[in-house]
């Protein structure tokens, strides 16, 4: 079920909300939680019910392993480290089988000139998200940083529908206390107002802004054979804004939907295109993934504790994994490599004590991010090269599409000069209720427009 669909907005969300709080009001707390897990699994199965056994098995498996690891006295014949390694390897194997098997086969065929048939498996929805979330849980259980949660709370932690499909990647330390807090079991009108406000902002970002840029990004990347200078820049910038408004819109909607249930999800974006260096960018973009990569990959690899050279290689290795996490393709790996190298250069630059004027630093950072997104978006190398060639003037210069240019200018104003949605939420005023309503009406009109034009689009991060 998509957050930007009628069935979610007008049926699933209100019905789930009403039943959940009705059950809580009757003091059927376990029943309410059970219902929320059921509703979340229903939400998950809406696309394809065949995915359901995979997520259920994954939850059960990780719950058992996590609880075994969390027990202070380990009675099993295996030591804790072996159990942890078994747990992580099993999770990665599941992810690897569904997400990377064909990529591996294709490359193996290429190297060995063999002809192994690809498996052509359907990628279970959100597998990258719930696998990472649960690996973190296992690692923390190993470190005795978890408590012995009951299965229902654990299942809710993994399946809670606002964050299930595309994050934010939540941490059990943040979520579990909220699920057991009895003050969260009653309706809070302030949270409803805040939730609807940020949900409407997210819906607007996705349906109105991101999907408008999607028209130009898709045309440029997928339908035009030769892009001239302005077209190529407009295409890459369109995708840069599409991705930001799409994903941050999704996150806003997730935060809003969770708030209706009195659950605070962590923020995932903090005006990333205002970043003045690449490290700053990763502290602002997909914050929960960055945190995961730092805590569970970069630091275990040694972080910055093993000298400069190892710090740089750790950064590159972490981002190579980050790239691969996003998708099974060389363009994603290359995108990760670019960011890893950029972070290493940035670190070296800082160590040398160099400073750039703020505007120049922003300009370089933004353009690096914009150019690297080309590899992230392109389906094939050739598509990326086509856009890049255009951007550097190899395909000549043609006229500008003024409408697109105006939208790009507006997007720059939005992302650079305006407060982001999290700030708006923090400074919520009573009259924002009118903004909520206005945004909601406007967005529903456009949502209908997309639907009747057979143009309804998914969120980009569902692919990961």
């Amino acid at each position, binding site marked *: 079920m998509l957050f930007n669909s009628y069935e979610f907005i007008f049926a699933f969300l209100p019905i789930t909300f009403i039943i959940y709080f009705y059950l809580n009001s009757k003091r059927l707390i376990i029943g309410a939680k059970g219902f929320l897990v059921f509703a979340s699994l229903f939400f998950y199965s809406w696309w394809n019910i065949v995915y359901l056994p995979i997520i259920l098995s994954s939850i059960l498996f990780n719950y058992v392993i996590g609880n075994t690891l969390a027990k202070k006295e380990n009675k099993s014949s295996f030591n804790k480290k072996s159990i942890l390694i078994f747990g992580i390897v099993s999770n990665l194997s599941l992810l690897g089988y569904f997400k990377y098997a064909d990529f591996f086969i294709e490359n193996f065929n290429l190297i060995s000139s063999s002809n192994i048939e690809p498996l052509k498996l359907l990628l279970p929805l959100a597998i990258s998200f719930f696998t990472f979330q649960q690996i973190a849980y296992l690692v923390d259980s190993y470190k005795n940083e978890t408590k012995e949660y009951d299965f229902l709370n654990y299942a809710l932690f993994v399946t809670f529908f606002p964050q299930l499909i595309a994050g934010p990647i939540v941490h059990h330390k943040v979520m579990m206390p909220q699920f057991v807090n009895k003050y969260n079991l009653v309706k809070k009108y302030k949270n409803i107002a805040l939730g609807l406000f940020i949900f409407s902002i997210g819906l607007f970002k996705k349906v*109105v802004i991101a999907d*408008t840029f999607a*028209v*130009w990004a898709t045309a440029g990347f997928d339908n035009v054979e030769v892009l001239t200078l302005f077209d190529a820049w407009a295409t890459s910038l369109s995708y840069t804004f599409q991705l930001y408004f799409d994903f941050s819109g999704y996150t806003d909607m997730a935060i809003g939907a969770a708030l209706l249930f009195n659950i605070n999800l962590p923020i995932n974006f903090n005006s990333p295109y205002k970043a003045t260096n690449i490290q700053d960018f990763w502290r602002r973009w997909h914050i929960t993934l960055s945190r995961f990569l730092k805590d569970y990959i970069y630091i275990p690899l040694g972080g910055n504790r093993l000298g400069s050279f190892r710090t740089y290689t750790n950064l590159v290795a972490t981002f190579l994994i980050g790239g691969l996490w996003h998708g099974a393709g060389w363009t994603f790996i290359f995108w990760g490599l670019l960011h890893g190298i950029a972070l290493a250069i940035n670190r070296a630059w800082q160590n040398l004590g160099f400073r750039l004027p703020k505007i120049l630093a922003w300009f370089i950072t933004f353009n690096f991010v914009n150019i690297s997104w080309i590899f992230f978006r392109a389906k094939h190398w050739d598509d990326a090269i086509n856009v890049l060639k255009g951007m550097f003037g190899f395909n000549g210069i043609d006229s500008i599409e003024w*409408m697109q240019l*105006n*939208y790009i200018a507006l997007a720059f104003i939005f992302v650079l000069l305006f407060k982001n949605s999290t700030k708006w939420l923090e400074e919520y005023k009573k009259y924002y209720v009118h903004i909520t*309503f*206005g*945004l909601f*009406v*406007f967005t529903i*009109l*456009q949502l*209908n*427009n*997309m*639907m*009747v*034009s057979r143009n309804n689009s998914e969120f980009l991060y569902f692919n990961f």
Partner: protein
Amino acid sequence: MIISVVIFEIFLRYSPFSSGISPVVYDKDIGMWHKKDFSGYLIKECYKNKYTFDEIGRVANSYTYEKNKKDIVLLGDSQIEALMVENSKNIHNSLYKELDDRYNVLNYGLSGTGPSQQYQILKNKVELSNVDTIIHFVFLENDLNDTDPKNFASTNRPKVYMKFEDLDNYKVIKPRAYGIKEKIRDFLGNFELYAYLKKTIYYYKYLFEKQDKNNIKIKKEVFQLQNEEYKWTQLQGSVYQINKLTKKLNIKYKIVIYSTYEFKDNYSLKTERFEKFLTSQSISHINLVPFLKDLSKTQSLSFECDGHWNGDTHEKISSFMIRKMLGNI
């Protein structure tokens, strides 16, 4: 709420989701007619084209009208109106060039019309005293269906139609009056929201019709069987009356035929029946299908999203018509 709707109208106008605003208004004789001295965009997934209507509401010429030259008048539906085609390539402007500027070629094509409305356009909108030739484009399947008022959806603009008992006897059924519904429609027609509302209505209508698909299919088939002969009477009646009028005024009348069935499935019975009728009435005509079939081997004929001929096809059809039909005028 109102502010949101107003901003949404502005957004539609200045976004890639624009559909353009309605090119027609209510007309007491035809039911609808192009807005006069009007320019707009026709926008779909596969084209975005600026069109212009002149002071009479005709599709604008790319040349200057000269009173000392005789007129050639084109009649037809959206394929001839061709708002999606670059104006200089539109069939009337292409013919003008092909005829070496010897005639004014005027485009009276109007989307959503069939022969009986086109007859009324001829009578009510065309200055017949200066006309040398009328070229009438008949698109068989569309025009047969358009003769039946039962096919006019209530959500569509009103239309005049002629109800023929036989070739000579008919009744003109005037379009419904300019009531509140049409006034609202004309008002909304100035906004993008009108196209938006129409799209929405069609979408939901189709969605609910789909629920009862089989039933509707059966009904439709029975309806078509019952009405086949009725439709032929209406089509032939309109052509017969145009021929009668042009003969009286000493104007040449020529017909260009196109059949989707013949083009796609080689089903030529309808074309043959119509050609036989035209021959019996001594009406000069040509069939475009064999030419277009040949042409499709070398170029794409139409826009992918709605099947209307593209600009190149308009130009090629013009050359073909000069060779086969208009060479001696």
